């Protein structure tokens, strides 16, 4: 019954929905690594979106062996179920690309801000952005490079002056299960916030 299966497939396709979670953070903090770890397609890098003038060479701390960087941004895809696809977008790390962040964040379920404890100030700007300039739910994830976590989470919270309601976790983003856990934390935080909003709306009416 080829006709039947064709139309059934078409119906499934029509029902398909997508969602988006943004992976943010400073330059060289592991955003691309996180996207690549969990994506079922090779992370798509989109240099072609930027003009040649913006594609300058960036320097990184010699402590990290990363010679290339995300010039614009990259994204990956995770199939959640037969009709839901989750897209992950790594933000461009360099400050000059910030106008793109609003565009990236629009319509997102939430965001993960990655921080490297050896270079906390590298992610200050990203934390500030989500605290002051965005309305999406967000969490902070400490990426312990080489699997060693050198700082206590409470110290990180204090150093970043994170509000108490913002979830803070530690996860080695080279491991896909850890990335899934970080994304799950975003979804749980978004759900919680949504439920609080609904309760507040009910109480008011």
């Amino acid at each position: 019954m080829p006709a039947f299966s064709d139309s059934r497939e078409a119906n499934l396709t029509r029902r398909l929905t997508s969602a988006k979670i943004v992976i943010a953070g400073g330059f060289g903090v592991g955003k691309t690594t996180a996207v690549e770890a969990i994506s079922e397609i090779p992370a798509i890098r989109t240099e072609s979106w930027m003009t040649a003038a913006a594609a300058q060479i960036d320097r990184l701390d010699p402590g990290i062996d990363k010679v290339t960087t995300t010039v614009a941004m990259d994204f990956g895809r995770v199939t959640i179920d037969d009709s839901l696809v989750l897209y992950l977008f790594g933000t461009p790390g360099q400050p000059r690309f910030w106008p793109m962040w609003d565009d990236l964040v629009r319509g997102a379920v939430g965001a993960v801000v990655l921080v490297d404890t050896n270079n906390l100030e590298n992610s200050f700007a990203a934390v500030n952005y989500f605290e002051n300039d965005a309305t999406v739910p967000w969490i902070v994830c400490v990426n312990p490079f080489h699997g060693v976590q050198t700082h206590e989470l409470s110290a990180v919270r204090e150093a970043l002056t994170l509000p108490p309601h913002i979830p803070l976790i530690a996860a080695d983003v080279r491991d896909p299960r850890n990335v899934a856990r970080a994304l799950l934390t975003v979804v749980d935080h978004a759900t919680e916030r949504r439920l609080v909003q609904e309760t507040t709306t009910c109480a008011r009416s």
Partner: protein
Amino acid sequence: MARRPGLHWKVRPYMTARGRTSSRDPLLMHTLVSTGDRYDPALAASLAPASRSLYEQARRMCSVAELSATCGLPLGLTRLLINDLLRIGQLVVHDTRSSQDLALLERLRAGLLRLT
């Protein structure tokens, strides 16, 4: 001589966009689009190279960001050309769910839990 699809490196995006710089309804980067049930080879042949390559790629449903990347077109231009194809009913948008919809969040939760 047969023209290759995509933009010639000497053709600036504003030429293809015929001077327009923004579209009326901005499509989100993860919005899913496709040619729907029908694909019209005659229409494909009549389109300008950049639009044709978008239309061909959209035979398999994908996001605006994927279309932009696979066709090698800047995101803004991709949105404009997709909007043109939507207006003449040759592409369809699949994605309408709010990102803070509780049912959607619950499905995400179940799917991600399986991956942890």
